[in-house]
């Protein structure tokens, strides 16, 4: 299961991860001793955060610069944890870390309280459609482990989460001393909820999307000369649904149809059925022309839209603001198309949720609703119906600069 730890800068994310790894015995004493010795020779105080803040500059500056992946296991399952940076200027690295998560922890410093990025990260998690969130109130040692301080932040932050349609449990911890991380705290007898590890194991298993309508973005068409397979192979990874040999599929936006003759995988006999998540190759009955960027759907199931204009909610991560009528590249599934923003309907500050007055541009870290126009028709879904084919990224000058979800095509 993939987990991300988010929250404002210095609220203790890396320390908590270091603690988790240390207290579950996922790092050896040896490696921790090595880090400790390194600290002594650099006359720096040891921090549990250095287990993931491995880059020299990170240790000197005392902040996480880029998301780190770490792995560990409980009796129940295997986890990959992303330690996201909390600094505002590093929001793009937080998004990178959070986008692959099935569930998220959001850390708030008990002494400092809710800060700019406590809310901003919460908001972005909701845009990244991460539904399962738990809030950690850290540094309880600094407020004498008092329940009052915990309840106050809990009340205020729950109210914020409600406005973005999320709810969460709250856990009081001390990363420094290890309270309620792996071991139940003796300093907070008033708390009868779970530790972080118990909460982690209680997150529901990510649901598989095999019951939804079939969607497969076409990644490529292979026709290698020396291949043992005769004819063209349509390559792609199934986003949702299931596909059987013999099914009729339809490619969008062209709406060309064909029969799936074989589902092939190298080195194995061809399969009867393929499921969401699998990377497969399809051999079609009539070698119908499909192209990279098409979305394949199944006849008889609900189908994607073919449009060149739609309403989207977007977030922007580039220092250069997003502006109207400038040419950008939009990427959705395997499709890549030129686009521009026709109208910016609403700009929201992602930290205090205030609506901005200007409508001419979207500054970095902000969220907006806008009408997007592509220079040809593309296939897509509404994000509420089919998230993987209902979201896209926007690239500016070689770099991914923002992301968005499709809200409506009736505009």
């Amino acid at each position, binding site marked *: 299961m993939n987990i991300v730890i988010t929250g404002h800068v210095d609220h203790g994310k890396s320390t908590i991860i270091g603690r988790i790894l240390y207290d579950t*015995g*996922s790092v*050896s004493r*040896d*490696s921790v001793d090595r880090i400790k010795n*390194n600290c002594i020779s650099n006359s720096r105080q040891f921090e549990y955060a250095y287990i*993931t803040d*491995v*880059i*020299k*500059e990170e240790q000197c500056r005392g902040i996480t*610069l*880029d*998301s*780190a*992946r*770490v*792995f560990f296991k409980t009796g129940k399952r*295997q986890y*990959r944890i992303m330690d996201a940076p909390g600094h505002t200027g*590093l929001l*793009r*690295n937080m*998004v*990178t870390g959070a*986008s692959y998560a099935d569930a998220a922890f959001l850390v708030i410093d008990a002494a400092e309280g809710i800060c700019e990025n406590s809310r901003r990260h919460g908001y972005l998690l909701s845009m*990244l459609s991460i539904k399962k969130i738990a809030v950690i109130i850290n540094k309880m040692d600094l407020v004498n482990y008092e329940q009052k301080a915990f309840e106050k932040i809990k009340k205020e932050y729950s109210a914020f989460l409600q406005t973005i349609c999320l709810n969460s449990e709250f856990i009081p911890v001390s990363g420094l001393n290890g309270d309620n991380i792996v071991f139940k705290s003796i300093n907070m007898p008033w708390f009868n909820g779970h530790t972080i590890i118990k909460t982690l194991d209680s997150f529901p298993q990510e649901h*598989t999307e095999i019951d939804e309508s079939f969607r497969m973005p076409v*990644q*490529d068409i*292979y026709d*290698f000369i*020396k*291949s*043992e*397979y005769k004819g063209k*192979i349509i*390559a792609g*990874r199934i986003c949702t649904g299931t596909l059987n040999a013999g099914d009729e599929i339809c490619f969008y936006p062209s709406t060309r149809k064909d029969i799936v003759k074989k589902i*092939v*995988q*190298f*080195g194995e006999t061809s399969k009867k059925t393929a*499921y969401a*998540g*699998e*990377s497969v*190759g399809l051999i079609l009955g009539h070698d119908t022309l499909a192209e*990279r960027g098409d979305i394949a759907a199944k006849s008889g199931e609900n189908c994607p839209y073919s449009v060149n204009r739609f309403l989207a909610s977007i977030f922007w991560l580039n220092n250069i603001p997003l502006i109207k009528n400038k040419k950008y590249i939009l*990427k959705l599934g*395997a499709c890549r198309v030129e686009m521009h923003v026709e109208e910016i309907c609403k700009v929201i500050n992602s930290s205090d949720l205030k609506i901005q007055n200007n409508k001419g541009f979207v500054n970095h870290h902000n969220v907006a609703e806008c009408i997007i126009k592509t220079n040809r028709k593309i296939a897509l879904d509404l994000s509420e119906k089919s998230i993987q084919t209902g*979201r*896209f*990224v926007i*690239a500016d000058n*070689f*770099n*991914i*600069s923002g*992301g968005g979800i499709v809200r409506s095509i009736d505009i």
Partner: protein
Amino acid sequence: MNHIQKLESLSIYILREAYANIKNLCMLWSIGKDSTVLLWLVRKAFFGTIPFPLLHIDTSFKIPDMIIYRDFLVKEWKLPIIYGINQNAIAEKKTFPDQTLNRLKCCDLLKTKTLINTLNGKWPRYKYNHITNKYEPDNDNSEYTGVIVGIRSDEEGSRSKERYFSQRNQENRWEFEDQPPEFWDQFNVDCAPGAHVRIHPLLDWTEINIWEYIQHENIPTVSLYYDNGSGKRYRSLGCYPCTFPITSKAKNPAEIINELQNGQLKNVPERSGRSQDAEDGGGLETLRRNGYM
């Protein structure tokens, strides 16, 4: 799908994205277990065809069994392969084994510099000719704009901060704090002229995952990883002056997995048998910022 099947599917997805988007692509094959798993995944992704050349950076100090195994698989699987080498440094004896350089400097000259200059086509490349069964000078010296590398994030600290697609600037440097975001399986496939993209399909695999996959798929691996009766085996492969075997009686992937999960190697870092890491304060950060894989 189980965990390994998910990892396999994502890696194949990444490989296909790289091939669809990058014009002049190659893949580093170090002969080790990770890049051999990667080679296996390439065959799966492209249905048995290897649609880009494999690149081996030879240092002339590789453990001889590695080169024998390399050329065995090259013939067996009809692999398109080229290698690059720093002939000057070796001829002038500017190496650690010749006792004229420290380990870090030697890695820089024999591996990083060779990688850079082989990728950009400035130094000679040698290509395997499947008719004559010999390596011959390659007259194609066009620049590779993408290179697939089998690094894993659990190997070493700075690798835990990598992206699946990571840009390297003209000087081959990795500006890790300025990386553009990467999310929703959309990658930064484009790069400025003169720069290149590194592609990392194995980032989410752990060392145990690699061995589980080797076992499940029955992937041929070089015998140096197994105890052949001497009570020693290699955990990680490199140049013989800087890589040392560990004491272990594991004879096959199943026994290696057990040793990693429950035995003497539980929580022991993989590269502890590599001496160049120790010279860099316990990591590869300096080497990697300058272009090392």
